[in-house]
């Protein structure tokens, strides 16, 4: 079973979803929770049997699909993808467990389980075609979730979401095909294996074009400024569960792909485009944080804040050193936990009042103290309070990028200021002051179902902030391999300078 653990992880939810059609609709939720829990424990088991000392991809599985074009079913995990997979299974479980939706619940759960398959698939795929297939497939369930269970503008939002991300990924597909062709030209055989591609040594101008092609696909997914506008609509219209999954996992696909594709395949281009991307990331951080401050809808605040944090992740990735990349991968997980939790929290109040306008609230701290407390903890995690999960990631990302540019880091560091501004302002508007609206006076505090989803997230947010080592170590190991590979492949002097030579520094120490 161990050697097929990844296939089981990918296809178990899909299988369960298909079986779900015959489950009676009253027991659908129990069924969904059970399946998601089993999947989550399977992923935990994957972590347990994952060998932190081992190098490269583990639990590789390879089955030929179209062998003359080198397309294989090829999956595997390393420290980078392992935790995002666990995060995905975790959030599906938490999401289903805390579902309060009543309309067509069974369909929703089945959709979510399909979505889980695609998410795990994306992060486990080592073949570009498999990766692409899961990447695109993930759009479909999300399209349904937004389009079927969303708010009044759901059709517009879901179509915008779909077309926007789809357009980006088409460019990515072109890039992939060209990569495979280059591999064919170079070595005489077609290959879509990511590992083969990482071993290819491309001329700098090829790297630049390919980097650009991949960049659009990833950047729209992240979403980077100025491709971010689909996100507020999607979040604004999506049901709570949709927003949670979207923010926690789907956005990570973009940043993960940067680490998996762009960095190891095009190290020179990464160095070359580092500063333009850093500028975009900084605009993303500051600009979206300011836009978040102007929002009137609490969900939009969280949506824009998640864009802002994604900027820090991007910055960390393009630090191109171990500290920065490790930090940004950790921040992906942290951001997943925190923004997922924040969206769940917004869902809680939306269920009660059916509005997300902050002006409708005020003084909730006295009516719903538990809710206010959890929201406060998560808000503090979001603004990067030390000993919460976000701080570790943000600190390492910024620390890493400081090596590349001092001034940019200083500007990007305003994230911690502007982040505090919009979050505190929003918190003040919602929770502080006196209760002015009659409807708010008798709001029920958070109930058990909701706590079930939120308490684990709170624990996670603090536990990983205090003791990030179990996660940080495997990530660090894989990232080191990545950086070594990048340094070896770097052709330009600039790239060799910017990407640290780990082998040399290791020798110096010993």
């Amino acid at each position, binding site marked *: 079973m161990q050697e097929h653990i990844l296939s089981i992880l990918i296809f178990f939810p899909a299988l369960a979803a298909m079986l779900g059609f015959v489950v009676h609709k009253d027991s659908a939720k129990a069924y969904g929770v059970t399946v998601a829990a089993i999947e989550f424990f399977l992923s935990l088991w994957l972590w347990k049997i994952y060998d932190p000392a081992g190098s490269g991809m583990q639990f590789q599985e390879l089955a030929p699909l179209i062998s003359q074009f080198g397309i294989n079913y090829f999956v595997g995990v390393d420290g980078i993808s392992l935790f995002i997979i666990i995060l995905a299974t975790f959030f599906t479980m938490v999401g289903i467990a805390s579902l309060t939706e009543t309309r067509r619940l069974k369909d929703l759960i089945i959709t979510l389980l399909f979505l889980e398959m695609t998410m795990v698939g994306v992060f486990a795929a080592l073949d570009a075609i498999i990766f692409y297939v899961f990447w695109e497939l993930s759009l479909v369930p999300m399209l349904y979730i937004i389009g079927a269970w969303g708010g009044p503008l759901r059709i517009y939002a879901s179509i915008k979401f779909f077309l926007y991300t789809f357009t980006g990924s088409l460019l990515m597909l072109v890039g992939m095909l060209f990569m495979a062709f280059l591999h064919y030209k170079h070595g005489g055989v077609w290959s879509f294996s990511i590992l083969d591609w990482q071993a290819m040594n491309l001329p700098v101008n090829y790297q630049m074009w390919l980097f650009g092609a991949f960049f659009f696909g990833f950047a729209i997914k992240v979403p980077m400024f*100025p491709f971010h506008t689909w996100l507020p609509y999607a979040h604004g219209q999506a049901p709570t569960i949709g927003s949670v999954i979207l923010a926690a996992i789907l956005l990570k696909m973009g940043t993960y792909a940067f680490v998996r594709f762009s960095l190891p395949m095009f190290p020179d281009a990464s160095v070359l485009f580092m500063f333009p991307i850093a500028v975009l990331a900084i605009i993303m951080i500051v600009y979206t944080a300011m836009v978040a401050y102007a929002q009137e809808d609490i969900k939009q605040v969280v949506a824009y804040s998640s864009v802002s944090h994604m900027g820090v992740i991007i910055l960390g990735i393009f630090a191109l050193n171990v500290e920065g990349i490790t930090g940004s991968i950790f921040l992906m997980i942290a951001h997943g936990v925190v923004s997922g939790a924040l969206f769940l929290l917004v869902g809680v109040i939306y269920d009660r009042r059916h509005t997300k306008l902050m002006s409708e609230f005020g003084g909730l701290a006295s009516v719903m103290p538990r809710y206010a407390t959890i929201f406060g903890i998560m808000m503090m995690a979001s603004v990067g309070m030390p000993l919460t999960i976000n701080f570790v990631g943000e600190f390492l990302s910024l620390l890493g990028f400081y090596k590349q540019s001092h001034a940019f880091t200083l500007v990007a560091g305003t994230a911690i200021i502007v982040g505090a501004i919009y979050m505190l302002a929003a918190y003040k508007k919602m929770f502080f002051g006196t209760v002015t609206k009659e409807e708010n006076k008798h709001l029920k505090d958070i109930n058990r179902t909701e706590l079930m989803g939120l308490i684990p997230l709170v624990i996670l947010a603090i536990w990983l902030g205090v003791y990030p080592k179990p996660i940080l170590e495997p990530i660090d190991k894989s990232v080191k391999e990545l950086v070594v590979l990048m340094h070896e492949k770097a052709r330009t002097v600039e790239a060799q300078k910017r990407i640290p030579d780990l082998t040399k520094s290791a020798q110096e120490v010993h």
Partner: protein
Amino acid sequence: MEIYLYIALFAPLVGSLFSALFGASPKTKVTGIVASGLLFVSFVSSSILLSYVLGGHTVHVEMMTWMATGDLYIPFGFVVDQVSVVMMMVVTIVSTVVHVYSIGYMDHDKGFNRFFSYLSAFVFSMMVLVMSDNFLGLFIGWEGVGLCSWLLIGFWYHKESATWAANEAFIMNRIADLAMLVGIFMLYWNLGSLQYDVVFANITTLPVVVITWIGIFLFIGAMGKSAQFPLHTWLADAMEGPTPVSALIHAATMVTAGVYLVVRANPIYSEIPNMGLFIASLGAFVALFAASMALVNRDMKRIIAYSTLSQLGYMFVAAGLGAYWVALFHLMAHAFFKALLFLGAGNVMHAMHDELDPFKMGGLRKVMKGTFIMMTLASVALAGIYPFAGFFSKDLILEVAFVDHHYIIYSVLLFTAMLTAFYSFRLVALIFHGEERYKLFGIHPHEAYKFMLIAMAPLLVLAIIAGAFKGSYYQLVTSLLPSGEYHVHSIATYWIMTIGTQLLVLAAIAFAYKKYSSWSSVPDGTSALEQSFGYKLLANQYYIPWFYEEVFSKTYRKLSHCLWKEIDLKIVDAMVDGIAGVVYKTGEKTHKIQNGNLSDMLRWMVIGLVILMLFAVGFSVLAMFAQAQVEFVRIYIGELVLGIGLVLVAVSVLLVTYHAASIRKTGKGR
């Protein structure tokens, strides 16, 4: 000894978590008692550690790894050495007193349990801050106290002003924290470690420019936490919090964290003397600046807050001039008498039903004898009268400035000392002497609980006798900090200086008493003094908060609104929608081509054929050029292809439009 270290550190955390368990439940005295008890335990452990450190040892533990990646390795490490143990003592003493006091002060408050949870959490953060053995650990505490400060300033969250002040404090501190983070980044990338011992051992290997930048960034961090100009406005607004909070956080401990940082990082600042001079000058400026604002203020707590600011200025003068032990000593002494002053003010507030204007009080010494004595003595200590604590610490700073030949700083500080004496006794005189103006407002003041007064007693004692520890303190800390006896060489000068200062201060006190002890009316803003420009300037805090609000807050608000409405929605998003719209409209417009008329289709076919062949010919011509090895064509082949392609597209578009026009014409004709 490690066990005591852990007890001292974690007892407050346990207290906080214990109280947090009852956070949403109705008030129980238990939380207050347990939290205070645990703090006392922490205090005892600190004392044991102090005696251990006095024996010449230090304790250094590494609890566990926090972050480790790449070359970065940051543990949760704690160190109890001569400097941190002093801070630990100050923190635990003041916080124990404040905790016990708060049991009485917060007696009638609904958020009693919550309050103790926050307050103990603050103490824990502060302990982390002072005990950490690396810069990032310090940063944890640094942010932790910021968080607790936010929680406690906004404790009465239903008050708009309180939550506003809380946010202001947090955000201003964040600005400074960013600089501090950058300083930490610089340390890491230059030295590869954030441990104090490693950093301080290797700091001299760096170029001076780098050290200067590190020093600047770390100091900006310190400026935020210690509310130095221009990041000072939050401190006065922070007085919205409950008074014990002001005593503990905004007088005794948190605001002195900046001074602690500079003292702790003394090996860095010793390398850059110019920076030190700048710090000292800024400190002197802030001392005077804050004292001037305290002169006219009509809010009891704000007056004391400005006084705190002013004293922080003193500490920075000492630290900037390299007299780190003096700075730390003043920090300690100041913590005692300023906390006492605040707690006394808290008693008065309680008695006066949260009235803060001293002009509406008067004559309270009859009903609040204990408080009156304590506040008077605290003010005496603050003014620096012999033999109270302030005399030993504050006059020492004056001496330092004098001995180092910084006469401008010296005279500024001397003048400030007079102002300090004046505003302190203006406050005392207005509150406790003169007519009982409160009767106009129908208030019936009463003395605070006995145990609150008893709780304050240790502070009173320390405020009086702290100066006596100077010798042993000096012995203790100079084993870690640069030593330096600051004695005026000539005995005569020394005596003239000391006695002169005392006389000036006494004169200021006398003036204050004379002017305010028989005050009889409540000023209503019509007197000539209140109309004068100088008064208005001071009363409005030099219009700096107004300036910040108008220039920064409003701009930020407007800018962000504009970014959202004008740029995000109207440009970025509209661009995307525009592209989609163009595609859609093109489809709408051109679907007429598919009118099913075979004849038209044939014509389109010919047009398409022409366009495609134009492309083919264009490309082959280019290929020919490339083959002919025309250098520029080879270089600009991409651009050429693009250009010719564009021209071809333009031609085809022209053709299409022309044709479409002709189709429309025939359509009309039909």
